[in-house]
């Protein structure tokens, strides 16, 4: 909450480039589906609806929705968007990424403790020397309960080895 580098620029110009980008993404997804299912063998058996039919329907619908989205983008029909602060988002994403990368090596408590501290930082609690130990201790407690008592398979690292 301490950092607030907001520059209030209204994005409501015409055309709405972000909405156009969404339209393009929808068409790209449709293209990927068309391409991928085109290699499926036509083993529909006795049903005329085969493995590729439904994906094709979905892809057609996505193309249609892409066109519709593009039209709305040009007409500026998309709702106004709140300004987003990307700093906090980066903190939270970094927390999730750190947990993912640390999980196997550092174990559940350290990895998830780091996640805890980084998310708290994203929400304005930047004192990592407080949040990190709190997070790790909390997660170790969770680990003892869920992995120790309930036998949930949460990866063990150096900290957890002390309790094994």
């Amino acid at each position, binding site marked *: 909450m301490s950092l607030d580098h907001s520059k209030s620029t209204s994005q409501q110009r015409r055309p709405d480039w972000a909405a156009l980008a969404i339209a393009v993404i929808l068409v790209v997804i449709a293209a990927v589906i068309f391409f991928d299912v085109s290699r499926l*063998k036509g*083993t529909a058996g*006795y049903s005329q609806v085969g493995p590729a039919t439904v994906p094709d329907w979905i892809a057609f619908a996505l193309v249609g929705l892409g066109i519709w989205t593009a039209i709305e983008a040009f007409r500026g029909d998309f709702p106004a968007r709140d300004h987003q602060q990307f700093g906090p988002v980066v903190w939270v994403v970094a927390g999730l990424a750190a947990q993912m990368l640390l999980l196997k090596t550092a174990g559940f408590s350290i990895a998830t403790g780091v996640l805890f501290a980084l998310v708290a930082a994203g929400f304005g609690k930047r004192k990592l020397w407080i949040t990190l130990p709190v997070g790790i201790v909390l997660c170790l407690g969770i680990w003892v309960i869920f992995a*120790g*008592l309930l*036998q*949930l398979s949460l990866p063990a690292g150096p900290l957890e080895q002390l*309790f*094994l």
Partner: protein
Amino acid sequence: MAGIAAHRVMLLSQNQIIASNGRVLEDIPLKHFILASLVAGALALPAHAADYTIMAPAAPGGGWDQTARSLQTALQEEGISGNVQVVNVPGAGGTIGIAQFASQQKGNPNALIVGGYVMVGAILTNQSPVTLKDVTPIARLTGEYEAIVVPASSEIQSIDQLVEALKKDPGAVSWAGGSAGGTDHIAVGLLAKAAGVDPTKINYIAYSGGGEALAAILGSQVTAGVSSYGEFEAQVKAGTLRLLAVSSEERMEGVDAPTLKEAGYDVVLQNWRMVAAAPGLSDEQKAAVLADIEKLAKSPTWQETLKTKNWADTYLAGDAFDAQLAKDISATETILKDIGLVK
């Protein structure tokens, strides 16, 4: 399985855990639980030289998982191994598990994997880069035979009448069974071929699990049903399903139905389960694992397990098993090509 994960059917033994999405967590041996509730530290067990880790390449509850857990219990109780862990890696007919096993356990003499006939088909249909050649098959442990049933209200009274209908119009005979390319599908393909019907013409309706297929058969949504005999046993005994034939070599004890062979169709199909070791073992290491499994198979604990679980003892090891396995793989490849599932 996305979306229908919650509907997947799993049968469990007592010491298992499953996520709502059908994935395995871990097994909870009761004694561990009690120990854990007393002192967390008391869980630590002394390490043994022959501490096996068994991978069950499936979610808990299915045949492979039950086999792995029964092996765990028997190996420990017979003192063949001090501490046995079971790890579940579910997915794609065991191909995800076997791929992980082959790459991570190379040369590890303490790693075992449970597998079975379903894997043979799954490897072919999924075009898995890792095959059974990339592990060291040790022994076949048990097997189940396929059964063909119709609802009690069906006009079809015998396997011959069913085949007659199939010959007349293969599309009009719909078969409910497990996933496409699985043992049930293969059984129907083999029967069609033996009866002189084009296997590509069979009208096979794949269901996600025993419960859903069984409901379709009981509700007469399909002409006939195919699955392992155990799935149908309770319904057959209650008289809601009519058992037409089984896929065993000889008549099954206590089962009032002919074998397909007796009925004149040369189809013998066993949905077997095996245990395999890691790739890259020396001959001595392989011999040591084989000796342990041999000891296990002969042990009273294992024999008792087979009896209570109603599993047939189809133990086969060594060169005889290797030969049988090679035969099964080539036969399966042929029939899957005939059905049109594998190019």
